[in-house]
């Protein structure tokens, strides 16, 4: 309650200012001058964040994250620097993710190596939100994490960044049947990786292969000739993911677009029939 009251009079307003500036001109103005929390209020929130009250501290972290304020990142980094109960730390990581401030990269990387897989997942997601290329090595390293959730978070982040250099590592994960890496691989795979991916049929779960190829065919940058081959490969795969991939591909193509790959996908779906 204290946190909410504090922010209703300062920090939250700063957030509202940021959100309110929705027009193009206003957005560029906001970029130039990100909102800033008043020092006195920030100090009080910091005290709550580092204080004894656990729920209050978690709320404080959330509100700081939502504020979008340029100076909201500092108390959160302070918290990560001195440590605290895991729930509070996760809230701080989420808040730093919401802020996406590059100044948080170092503590986020530190927590991406935490012994708790939950904490690591929060840290990786926060790193993913930082629009800075310095996070790429940490995200790529997180593909080697022992926890599937952490790897999936890193894979999604790298796919969103179109980090094609991560494709070989993603392929290595798919070879190990890692379902979480498959969509990202489909989004990042270069044409030379596609045959390798297709050859995994039989050695890797068909659903994993279908998931990767399904994302690949939906890409605009793929030549339709290659797409037809990929669609046929998907057609040979068993499992629900293969059918889903074909259905999603057909649905993703505009109705007026009569490209051969779409026809092929539709033909394969017809052959599979509704019961399949």
């Amino acid at each position, binding site marked *: 309650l204290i946190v909410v009251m504090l922010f209703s009079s300062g920090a939250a307003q700063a957030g509202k200012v940021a959100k309110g500036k929705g027009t193009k001109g206003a957005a560029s103005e906001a970029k130039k001058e990100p909102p800033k929390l008043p020092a006195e209020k920030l100090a009080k929130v910091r005290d709550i964040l580092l204080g004894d009250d656990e729920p209050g501290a978690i709320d404080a972290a959330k509100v700081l994250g939502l504020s979008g304020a340029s100076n909201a990142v500092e108390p959160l980094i302070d918290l990560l620097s001195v440590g605290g109960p895991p729930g509070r730390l996760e809230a701080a990581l989420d808040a730093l993710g919401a802020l996406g401030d590059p100044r948080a990269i170092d503590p986020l990387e530190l927590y991406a190596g935490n012994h*708790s897989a939950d904490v690591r997942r929060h840290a990786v997601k926060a790193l993913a939100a930082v629009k800075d290329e310095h996070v790429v090595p940490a995200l790529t390293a997180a593909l080697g994490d022992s926890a599937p959730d952490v790897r999936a978070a890193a894979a999604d982040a790298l796919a969103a960044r179109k980090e094609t250099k991560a494709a070989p590592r993603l392929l290595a*994960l798919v070879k190990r049947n890692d379902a979480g890496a498959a969509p990202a691989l489909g989004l990042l795979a270069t044409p030379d990786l596609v045959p390798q991916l297709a050859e995994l049929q039989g050695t890797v779960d068909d659903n994993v292969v279908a998931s990767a190829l399904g994302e690949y065919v939906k890409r605009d940058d793929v030549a339709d000739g290659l797409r037809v081959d990929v669609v046929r490969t998907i057609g040979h795969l068993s499992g629900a993911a293969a059918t889903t991939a074909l259905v999603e591909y057909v649905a993703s193509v505009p109705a007026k677009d009569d490209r051969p790959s779409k026809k092929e996908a539709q033909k394969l779906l017809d052959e599979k029939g509704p019961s399949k």
Partner: protein
Amino acid sequence: VRAGVVRARAFACASVFALACSWAGCATSAYQRAGSSDDVAAALSKTDAAAVTGRPQNAAGRALAFLALGGTKGPRLAAYDLSASRLLWTQPADLKARVAVGADVLVYAAADALVARDVTTGAERWRQPIAKDERLLGYTIDGRTAYLVVQEGGVHLHGGKASVRALDATTGSARWRHEVASGNVGAPVARGGLVAVPVQSQYVTLLDARDGEQLAQVLSNEEAATFVRALPEGLFFGSAGVFRLAPGTAAGSRKSNGYVRAKLPAFVRPVYWFDLYRPEQGDYSALDRNRILWRMTATDGGGDARFRNDLALVHNYRFFFGFDARTGELKWAYNHPGSEAVSSALVGDAVAFVTADGELGALDARTGARTFSAKLPGEVVRGATFDAEGWAPSGAAQPTAPLADTLTAIVWDLDRRFWDVKMFAIEELARQPGHEVTAQLLKITEQEGLPPAVYQKAGEALVARKDGSAADLLARVLATHADYADGKAAPAVEILARAAGAMQARAAAPALVMHLRRPETPPAAVTQIARALAAMGATDALPALRDFVTMYRADPLYDGDPTPLVAASEAMLALGGPGERQLLLYLAEEPHTVEPLRVHLRRALAQTAGAEARLREAATSSADE
């Protein structure tokens, strides 16, 4: 195991009975004079020294190996001349037990008979049938007489009665028969006019080879006598150790000078000879591949027992080892490439062996150098008996590999059955000097898929070596970390960190810091990392130590066992300055810090504060002076 327990109980009962008889003077007991040193001395005095030679039993005196062959060509018996490196003969023969070799014939048990074959040609000379109500308990041959122990009635070793029968080895005709008071009798041995027969696992009955008259009985009071062995240097009996059969050991006292046991490492199966009561050990078996090879020093009538050259050799499948029998020190090791040795014998100064795929070989018993090599192509060998006493292979010995190289080869042998031997090899490797040995030990810690005890053993060896020259190698090994995508596992960080600390390997500090920050590093490894960093004075590691302590100081995971946090904070105190003390003071008072760490920090900070104050006072007073 059950059989062993039963045997132990039986032995204990028999011992009590034997003692009771000797106290009460059982006039009717067949073992009335058992343990009499006078009787034993008298019996041994009848030994025909001229009949005991240090040469092969066969009349030609050639070093021969008799091979039980199998494979697609069916069961056969072959004779191989070791001196001439040539196969003498092969005959179809279905052996059910070992070959025993005499002057002109060899004998072996078939399904329902004892079969004798000509040593020179392999032709069958005679066949002694075993009746349906009889059981062949064992046999031997000495010169031109064969001796059998046969049980009539009862079940194996229980009930019925047994007899020792002497046959003319040339014709198979009976010479004499001696009835034994028990059906519980083992296989006989013979040497120089004496026949020794183990009875009830406790007695060794000595018979006159000429007429079967009983001359003496040894009473093995302190140890079961499961074997009797005839060698040119004497008669021996025992089980867990070896007694030289002599007046001084007539009552089987292990305190006598006639008793000896080799000091050997734990992996060695302490089998000094085959258990002559167990029929399965009468045939070629796995026991032939895993046992102790020994000979005794010859004595001039004295009863002392001492291993020849103080050596006890160990045959362990594909490996042979030479140990100092008194100290257990490893003298040499031989790793036979490929197939395992199915049979071996210490025939004087050479270890003769044959492998399952038909390779014949010999090693110098003193050095382990390979001195003989021959091959029977395409054969499958089940076992062998060597009649090659005193054989000295004439070829030049192959150069022996350095012991460390052989031990390394054993460690990296692909056969995954021999972990006990590999563990021993690691232990011995660690005793060898040299940078290369340290590198090999490190390599073991890098290898994935080994049993945890192997990493532990290699790591402990590294810790003990304190080989500072290997710091770079250690750093290289530690530089790797787990990566799921690459399919890589973490190295054995815990033990390597200990080694790094012991070595003062500053070069490894960055890698240790890296592992301190890794999610997969287990708490026990963190503890060792922190201690190592403190031991090597790695002040560069302070940021990582700070990060670790702050990140986990409120983690309930460490509420139960804060050892890693304590170790990291101790390292901070040891390496850091006022900044670290200030941070730790804060953490000691911050309520979310796990209680055990808070308690420790308060105490540690108070202690170090006192020490610092004393140092300051001392510095001030010396400055004043």
